[in-house]
């Protein structure tokens, strides 16, 4: 009984720089953690997991966070649609036939100039969507799918001057007894001290955060109908407009370091995820 060896080897090839002999693993790609061009940092849904037993529509409010430092303010056309797509995770194609078109505030536009005071990085206008009767929506699907969650997708398409960016947020519809909630990132600390705005000091400093809550326990149904207890595993991504954070993505037991390039205050953003759709964003700006 063998798994796809080539896929494992693909991973291993990523992991094993035998190529170090040539430095072949080096690339000149832009870093995912450096702010500059248009980025979507996160989409926070106030209810990341919806009760699949609910017999009435459920409202969910979603707040996209963007960063557009280089453009320094422009107006985006924003189109939003939503649909149930249980097969999204199979091939990554959005396969819903009749997506629900949602109305975004301000006539489907957003002015990023409103984020000037926060280094053109921050929350867009929130949008509230209504998920139709979830119990009807997921009726017929297997108990395993219903328990573990079926994807209800919400897609945001931003466009400005020909530049486009699309982001998909999946709201899980699940019959779990205890539904997922968002983690909370309360504060960002440098060398253990709270900072009210973007850091200004130079030198390498410990970069950490405080979270009042703790990873939630939840259950997963296996294919044989049995359940497995699991605990969330937080992952934090740091974004910054200057200096360097390394590593820029960490697990709970890991630590990042921040090093400024100069003493001017910069933007620093922490995004905390529970890997189940729950997310929180903390932004420090000059």
């Amino acid at each position, binding site marked *: 009984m063998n798994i796809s060896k080539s896929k494992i080897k693909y991973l291993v090839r990523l992991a094993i720089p035998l190529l170090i002999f040539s430095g072949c693993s080096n690339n000149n790609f832009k870093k995912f953690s450096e702010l500059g061009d248009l980025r979507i940092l996160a989409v926070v849904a106030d209810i990341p997991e919806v009760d699949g037993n609910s017999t009435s529509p459920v409202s969910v409010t979603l707040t996209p966070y963007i960063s557009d430092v280089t453009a320094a303010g422009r107006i985006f056309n924003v189109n939003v649609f939503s649909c149930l797509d249980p097969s999204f995770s199979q091939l990554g194609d959005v396969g819903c036939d009749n997506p629900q078109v949602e109305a975004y505030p301000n006539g489907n536009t957003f002015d990023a100039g409103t984020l000037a005071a926060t280094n053109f990085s921050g929350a867009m206008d929130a949008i509230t969507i209504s998920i139709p009767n979830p119990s009807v929506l997921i009726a017929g699907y297997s108990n395993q799918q219903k328990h573990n969650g079926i994807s209800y997708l919400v897609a945001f398409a931003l466009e400005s001057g020909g530049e486009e960016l699309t*982001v998909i947020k999946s709201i899980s519809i699940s019959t779990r007894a205890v539904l997922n909630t968002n983690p909370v990132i309360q504060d960002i600390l440098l060398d253990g001290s709270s900072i009210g705005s973007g850091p200004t000091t130079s030198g390498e400093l410990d970069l950490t955060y405080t979270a009042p809550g703790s990873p939630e326990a939840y259950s997963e149904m296996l*294919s044989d109908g049995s359940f497995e207890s699991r605990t969330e595993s937080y992952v934090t991504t740091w974004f910054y407009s200057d200096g360097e954070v390394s590593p820029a*993505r960490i697990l709970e037991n890991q630590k990042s370091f921040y090093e400024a390039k100069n003493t001017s205050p910069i933007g620093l953003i922490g995004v905390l995820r529970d890997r189940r759709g729950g997310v929180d964003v903390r932004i420090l700006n000059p």
Partner: protein
Amino acid sequence: MKLSLYWNRINCFTKLDAFKKFYLFFILLTLVSLNARSEKKDKFSQNTQSQVLPNVKISGVLLEKGSRKPISNANIYVLPEGLKATTDKSGAFIFESLPAGFRQWVVTVSGYKNLKLDYKYESSQEGVKLYLERKIYTPFETTVVGKIKKEDPSQKTLKKSEFLVMPGSNGDPIIALENLPGVGLSFDADVTIQGSPPEDTRYLIEGHEIPYIFHFYGLNTVALPESVESVDFLSAGYGAKFGRASSGLVNLNLQKPRTDRSYQMAFVDLTAAGGFAEGPLGQNKSYFVGARYSYVGQIIKLATDALADENDGPPSFNVAPTYMDINFSYHNKLSDRSNLEFTALASRDIVKAVQEDAENLTFSGTIYGKTEFFRLIPKYTYRLSGDSKIETSIAAGIDRQLFTPGIERLNITTTRVSWRAEYEKIFSDTYKLSAGTDFLYDYYKLDARISSALFGDDDSDLPFGLAEILTSNDKSSDFKQGYFVKNRFDLFDKKWGLNVGARLDHFQLHKEFYFQPRLGVDYKITPESNLYFNTGVYYQPETPINLGEGTGNPDLEASKSLHYALRYDQDFRSGSTEGFLLSAGLFYKDLRNLRVQSSSQVTRNNELVPERYKSNGEGSSKGFETLLKYKRERSFVNLGYTYTKSERIGLDGLTYPSLQDQTHNLNISSGYSWGKYVFGARFRYVTGVPYTPNMGGIYYDNADTYIPIPGRRLSERIDDFWQLDLRIDRKWVYEKWILSVYLDLQNITSRKNQTSISYSFDYSESQKSTGLPLFPSFGVKGEF
């Protein structure tokens, strides 16, 4: 005459004119020479005639210098009497009655340097050892690839003497396979045959399936080269003896341990060190044992640390791959009719990598992977009569695969027992029958919570964070039965040959029997040329994971393929051992019921579930392959070329090249043996494989990753590959051991061959990923 008698004449020399001087000088030179020969004769004469010495008995053994291999059937002369002794099978000789004293011993054996030894003895002696040095210590074999009268005409074989010196292969039997036509270039630890995916190739040891053939990253085969006698490679049109593989098989034949003497070997090279020992265990019994441990992880760590120091920062990866293997074999000739063999093989690979900064967003945290297996293979052969025999073997063992990328896990433990039995009888000069069984039983435990992206199509860049999480905690079994029969008819004065066979397989998880006829026709055009045609039906079962309810689709069908192969062999050597050999052929494989990915939901047990896969893929692989060999005693040149067109029909009805479609594959290898040196070179050119370009990405918030937007499917190819490898071997031959040093320079031009394409985190940028530049491998080996 004594030399002193000339002295007075020399004193007169200065008084003569030039002509006379020259004349006298010539005479003197002649006399001196005669005197010398006369003195030598006198010396023997004094010892043999003037003394009253008794005759003595001298016995000993004639051995090859360095290897201590007994040299049989060699004549040993003792001069001047011209007495002769001939060595027996063990190299032993005996002179029952030799005149004592000073004698010259002369041994002349084809392939060895002449031995002339002045040997003095005054009493009887035993255990005298004479060593003959080979003229060439690395002769190139005359093996004909796809040679005439092979049991399976589709079979190509590489012998140990070939793969050990194959440039670019580092002495590895499977890496050397890439020099053969029909074998694709693989950047991973796989063997791809005639445009088929690696999953369609089965790997065997002594006819029994093993989970993988290579150690990590394809650095080495799982068995020590010294343990391997040969490697068989079966491709399109292979016979009924084997099955369950759509494309072909690779079988490692372990060597029979030496019975004539003991042999030990130890080696150390850039990535691994190991040892090997073999020899007789009393009468009719013999053994070998070998082990190897790789410290490539430590080497990598040194390099990463050095890079980190250079870059003034911590390395982004901390990697610790390592592997080891152990081979053991015990042979017991129970009687003239029966043999018992017992083989054991164990292999383990461990990879651990810590990615602290997930730039590529594929995963973060620690990847840990361990694959290991062992096999115990008892084999019994019994000759019922002069023309019939039975052979049976069982392989029992456990395979383990543990893979934990980040917080996910895949843990598979398979207890595997396979049984092969074959009865063979030669009924007449023109008819031979073979029949047998080929069973495989697996009991497996699957504990998985892992992204389905691990199992998806290779051209899909579905992010691991997005793909469905497959969960399973399954214990189950899988039993595959196989029955085969082969009939060989030699017709019309043995000019025509007919192989009529069939195979019946039953796959428990598919719940079906599969009848697979196999047919082969061969025609001897001339004594030096043959034409072969082979065809057959082949079924390959799906893996339990792909058939699992929680991990795949239990309704998947076994894939089916129809093979057609035509080949022409010509030996241009006209009875000589030197000259040209040609093998050229066409192949066509019609592929059906191929597994393709599906994003549909289907109703199973009255509820909607992910379909994941369908069995309605189709495709074909066709091509031309040829191997031209030029062989001399001290040198060889092989030219292998394969043209392949491998295609798949997508769910949209369109035809695409397959991921293994390497249109042109040219391989030129050569070797030259010069004394104790062997020089080798290999040049390869291979068309780049197709890939689907990505045109950008969509951000998927839940996984904090981007989903690639694919462009036209498989519309682009990576750059063509070409590489030149050089190898130098040098041996120092001592009486009882040989020291070998080799330098294998892979990619001597340091060409940056593209292996794939990599993208920035949002797929807005791309660049070529390249393989190793000039990669030197240096090793030392001692043979005792």
